[in-house]
């Protein structure tokens, strides 16, 4: 594929469609994922899970397991005593008390998986079951069983943000909606199940092959679980089958692999079966959101308050920190003058949550976007007009000081509404709502706001980049940016080719070894194209400057008149070729005062640390998306068919169009599953549907036709104007469908997923109420 610009004219690659460099290998099965890896002398590690939610371990006997031929090590809680890790230092690789179903009680390293499994079966454990806590409300009760002795009241993290006078704002409101939303537990379902391979050398240095998406802080987080120095950890990231936030923390199987490797002196691989993956992976945080929003009779928002109880689960990973993003939406989703946000995470004996694409905003937008729709209905306005009336414009600042420098919310609203003929259809469908007929059509609009230039939750949101060129004008970019399938490899390649005028295929990326590549905070917060895009561009421009300076000296032409195109040094004005780039590089390298093109860059975005009070411009950019869902509801079976999704998103500027489309489509698939069918059925702490038969992902036939509109607001701080894009598609779709369901049937669902049964029941109850002569006002509006 020759994507290089014709030397005579400058043809930009920005906004074109570029394939992922690893796509052919993945499509043909050549890629060796971490799951496929085998090292010489490697042992297999297997974990004994508790299989009960809350218990004391009375006795554990590993004698028979130890004695089994082929077993090299058996570890229990005693081998991990004191090695606390995790956000709140409440977790340990192997437990001495059971706090959730998947607590790791013992681990075995053996020659084969079969032997390891047999050894597990030989471990005798006597438990004394304890009363459990299975909802945050129950955990918050005074007489609730205590899950961690050192966390009284089962209280985990707490967050607050207030702005303005709530009482006054309530008094000034003509309408207030007041609802409780209960977003549920879902999980990432990565195609590649969790896997780690650990090996120690004789100096005590650990090499760990892992699926992590944040290799540098990973070292910091893993070290305490092993009692070693983070500097003694080398992280290698082979290709992974998905992450989506699930690999943004250390989970016990990783230190377990390392502890087994240490004990045996051999490499140890731990890999989950699909059932283990379901049970032992992090979840999206379940929450109870009590939200109130007010507005005046003419549709101006007056305040928004949210009181959130989070189901922490048994340990604290990144899940309970999601209020940091939840509150940005509560305070910044449309112009909200007065805000009151509180969130308390409560320990329970349920599976515990990590981070997951959307990071709290999926849950919050489920509530805010439905209340926007309810308010519009109650003030008798077209929701589009209501949204436009309250939409921020460029230059506005939210109560938390998010600076919406380039804001394209209005453009997104208008593009999506006009492409889908929203207002006309909404009126038409609402009029048919109570007419006879089994199948009802509905259309629903939702939007959200999200950080689009990183999020400075850690002390640094930066990235290091090293760019070098060889004597043949091949470029290697050594970058902190991890590739977990999201496509930063294509973006980096495209940017280097754009800046240095080399073919895409001449760019190699090295980004999977923490001993080689420099710091990056990780793949999260929709940040990598924004942050690594800037880092790559800056490094490439430094290299270009060095090359053009050398060319000026050698050719006697001033640098301003020169450019790099098509593998040549050319005249900027008309593209006349002057010298082959590779020849120039060799001349630079082999002359009397030799120089090599080898540049470094450290880019730190202009954003402010989150801070304890949460008043800061914590991202270098913010972005909006609007989704309009058109659905058909079978009012008898409750089945929702999504006929079409129109999505408009402020992307700043399109970099790789193919990657962008892929991210939006993939994000929508996750959001649709969340909305319609995915649900971890957890009964008293035990997962009942740990398989794909009963845990319903969206499959290909359920993917609706998509009409995507990319709005280019041209972000001053972003690479070529781009913003981060990948979480919003997951965030916005569920409430768009909920609003469409209301439009179609008059039914509101507060507790996702909108499964056929849930919808059928709600419609059935509404009809029963209507027949009984009661007025059904699902919007629970309160005129004050």
């Amino acid at each position, binding site marked *: 594929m020759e994507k290089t610009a014709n030397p005579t004219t400058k043809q930009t690659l920005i906004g074109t469609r570029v394939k992922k460099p690893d796509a052919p290998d993945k499509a043909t099965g050549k890629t060796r994922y971490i799951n496929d890896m085998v090292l010489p002398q490697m042992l297999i590690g297997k974990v004994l899970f508790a299989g009960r939610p809350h218990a004391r371990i009375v006795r554990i006997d590993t004698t028979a397991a130890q004695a089994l031929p082929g077993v090299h090590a058996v570890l229990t809680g005693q081998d991990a005593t004191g090695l606390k890790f995790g956000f709140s230092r409440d977790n340990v690789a192997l437990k001495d008390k059971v706090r959730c179903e998947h607590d790791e009680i013992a681990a075995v390293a053996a020659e084969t998986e079969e032997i390891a*499994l047999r050894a597990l079966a030989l471990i005798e454990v006597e438990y004394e079951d304890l009363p459990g806590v299975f909802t945050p409300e129950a955990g918050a009760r005074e007489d609730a069983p205590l899950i961690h002795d050192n966390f009284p009241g089962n209280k985990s993290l707490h967050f607050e943000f207030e702005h303005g006078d709530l009482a006054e704002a309530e008094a000034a409101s003509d309408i207030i909606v007041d609802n409780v939303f209960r977003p549920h537990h879902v999980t990432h379902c990565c195609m590649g199940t969790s896997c780690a391979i650990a090996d120690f050398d004789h100096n005590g240095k650990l090499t760990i092959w892992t699926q992590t998406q944040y290799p540098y802080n990973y070292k910091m987080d893993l070290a305490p679980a092993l009692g070693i120095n983070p500097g003694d950890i080398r992280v290698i990231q082979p290709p992974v089958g998905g992450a989506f936030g699930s690999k943004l923390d250390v989970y016990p199987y990783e230190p377990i692999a390392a502890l087994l490797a240490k004990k045996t002196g051999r490499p140890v691989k731990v890999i989950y079966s699909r059932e283990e993956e379901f049970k032992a992976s992090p979840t999206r945080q379940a929450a109870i959101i009590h939200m109130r929003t007010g507005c005046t009779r003419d549709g101006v928002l007056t305040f928004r308050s949210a009181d959130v109880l989070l189901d922490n689960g048994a340990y604290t990973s990144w899940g309970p920190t999601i209020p940091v993003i939840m509150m940005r939406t509560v305070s910044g989703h449309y112009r909200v003058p007065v805000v009151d946000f509180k969130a308390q995470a409560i320990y329970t004996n349920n599976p515990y949550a990590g981070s997951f694409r959307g990071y709290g905003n999926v849950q919050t937008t489920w509530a805010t976007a439905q209340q926007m729709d309810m308010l519009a209905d109650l003030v008798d306005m077209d929701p589009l007009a209501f949204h436009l009336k309250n939409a921020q414009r460029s230059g506005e600042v939210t109560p938390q000081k998010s600076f919406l420098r380039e804001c394209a919310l209005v453009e997104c609203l208008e593009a999506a509404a006009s492409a889908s003929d929203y207002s006309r259809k909404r009126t038409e469908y609402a009029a048919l709502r109570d007419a006879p007929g089994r199948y009802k059509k509905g259309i629903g609009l939702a939007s959200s706001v999200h950080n689009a230039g990183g999020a400075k939750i850690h002390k640094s949101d930066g990235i290091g980049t090293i760019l070098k060129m060889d004597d043949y004008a091949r470029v290697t970019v050594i970058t902190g940016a991890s590739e977990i399938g999201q496509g930063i490899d294509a973006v980096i390649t495209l940017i280097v080719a754009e800046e240095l005028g080399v073919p895409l295929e001449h760019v190699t990326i090295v980004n999977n070894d923490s001993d080689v590549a420099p710091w990056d905070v990780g793949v999260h917060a929709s940040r990598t194209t924004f942050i690594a895009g800037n880092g790559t561009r800056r490094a490439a421009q430094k290299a270009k400057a060095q090359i053009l300076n050398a060319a000026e000296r050698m050719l006697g032409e001033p640098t301003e008149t020169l450019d790099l195109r098509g593998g040549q040094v050319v005249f900027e004005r008309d593209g006349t070729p002057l010298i082959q780039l590779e020849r120039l590089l060799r001349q630079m390298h082999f002359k009397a005062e030799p120089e090599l093109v080898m540049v470094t860059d450290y880019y730190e975005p202009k954003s402010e640390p989150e801070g304890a009070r949460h008043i800061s411009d914590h991202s270098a950019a913010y972005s909006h998306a609007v989704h309009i869902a058109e659905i058909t509801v079978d009012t008898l*079976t409750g089945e929702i068919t999504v006929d079409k999704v129109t999505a408009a998103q402020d992307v700043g500027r399109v970099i790789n169009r193919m990657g962008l489309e892929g991210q939006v489509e993939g994000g929508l698939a996750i959001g649709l599953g969340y909305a319609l*069918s995915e649900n971890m059925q957890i009964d008293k702490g035990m997962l009942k549907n740990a398989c794909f038969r*009963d845990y319903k992902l969206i499959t290909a036939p*359920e993917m609706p036709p998509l009409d995507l509109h990319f709005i280019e607001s041209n972000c001053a701080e972003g690479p070529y104007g781009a913003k981060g894009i990948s979480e919003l598609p997951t965030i916005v779709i569920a409430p768009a469908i909920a609003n469409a369901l209301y439009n179609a049937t008059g039914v509101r669902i507060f507790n996702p997923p909108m499964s056929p*049964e849930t919808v059928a029941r709600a419609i059935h109850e509404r009809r029963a109420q209507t027949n009984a002569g009661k007025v059904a006002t699902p919007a629970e509006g309160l005129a004050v």
Partner: protein
Amino acid sequence: MSETMEAITTYLAPRRLDEALQAMADGDATVFCGGTDLAPQTESGARPYKSRLLNINRIEGLGGIAADGGEIRIGATTTVAEIRRSAALAEIAPVLVEAAEHFASEQIRNAASLGGNLCNASPAGDMSPPLLVLGASVELACWRDGAAHTRRVPLEQFFVGPGKSVKRPEELLTAVVFARPAPGFVGRFRKSGPRPALEISTVSVALGARVADGRLSEVRVAMGSVAPTPLRARHVEAALEGQPLDATTIAAAVAAAAEDAQPIDDVRASAWYRSHLVKVFVEEVLDDVRGN
């Protein structure tokens, strides 16, 4: 998990039926056809393998659809995909083709066999309701006293509980047979699950009857996933038999459905939803027949 997997000592893939029957005669063989039920069950430890694994796919005469005579005969190894594509069945028994249409995914349909679907005896098995309304029987063969013996069991007597049938361990299901439906026969099938593709039935309903002069006769109604086995809905049938197909009759049939369906709560649906769906589907299939 593999620790519970019993060792398979012998693998057999005979070409002749008598060889297969002999290999099963002591009841110590696991029959393997498409493996789409067997593999997940053995893999999860839900059931162990027996010492002999018997692949029946190569047995001559065990597959294929014979639809020429008065009796229709579908061989045990016939795949759901073959049923779905069969022009003859589309003509004679579209209700069966309809059920094959809503079965799993293309990949699974290519492997899944009719015999395996019935022998797995799941209350959610999608081939059962249409075959029940077609009045089908199964043929069970075994080797005894140096010869093959075959018996016929009406399908409605075949199932005895979830995963259980009257088939003995030494018996092989060789074919499904049913009489060519008489002129005027109509059949309908409806199933539901939380998503359109790759779905185990939350509830399924099939109807088979003769329609003449706006009246139903020889009515058979079958339901899946509402009881421990697929069942004939006798109360619904009684409400319909000989009655004019009008709103009153349909209402009576819908009301009767509640007496036939005894669903439970499980991870896939609540008992309330299943009872609700059964009524919806009974009404839907009857309305549909009435409309035509």
